[in-house]
């Protein structure tokens, strides 16, 4: 089964990473979206998403890297159905 890892705190991505499979997904939300603006936060995971509304809220949408696909809330809901389950790594 493939999981969508929801990360809302920038410090938590590295903690969850050892458990994330190549075919799992990572979705950055809330404060964690700043990771999408940095080229140092690249992972082995093929499905990297960042919540567009949270990037806009923080004024950093135009700084996000191409390796993170921007998704809005409707896509967020769809992603939770595309993946078999969602794991919010607090």
């Amino acid at each position, binding site marked *: 089964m493939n*999981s969508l890892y929801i990360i809302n705190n920038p410090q938590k991505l590295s903690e969850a990473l*050892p458990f994330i*499979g190549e075919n799992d997904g990572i979705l950055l939300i809330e404060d964690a979206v700043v990771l999408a603006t940095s080229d140092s936060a690249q992972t082995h995971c093929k499905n990297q998403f960042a919540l567009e509304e949270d990037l806009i809220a923080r004024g950093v949408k135009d700084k996000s890297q191409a390796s993170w696909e921007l998704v809005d809330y409707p896509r967020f809901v769809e992603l939770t159905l595309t993946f078999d*389950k969602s794991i*919010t*790594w*607090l």
Partner: protein
Amino acid sequence: MSKSICIVFNKAPYGSQAGRELLDIALMAAAFDMPITAIFTGQGVYQLINNQQPDILNIKNHSATFKALPLYDIEQILVDQNALHQFNLSQNDLLGIDELQYVSADVIKSRIANSDFVLTL
């Protein structure tokens, strides 16, 4: 077959109540006969340290409940051995629970992948 759940302890006691409140979820899931895996990773391994004495700070000690997990039929208890090494801890520092399994991140990864629910707090 009932849905399975992984409960991930990744925060130390007693600076946060996460361990305590995750334990309550684990016990409730056990009452519903869900297959449960308790996973200790990151600073969560400190939850299992023996000889905790938070009562000297007037804080309730919940570590005895970890010892009782097998009594609630929670027998899958995985401890991330990388986390133990990272914090300079050894198996002797932990509560004497026969069911503790010291495993690699890959074992935890596959258990998480194969569960229906995974909770952290």
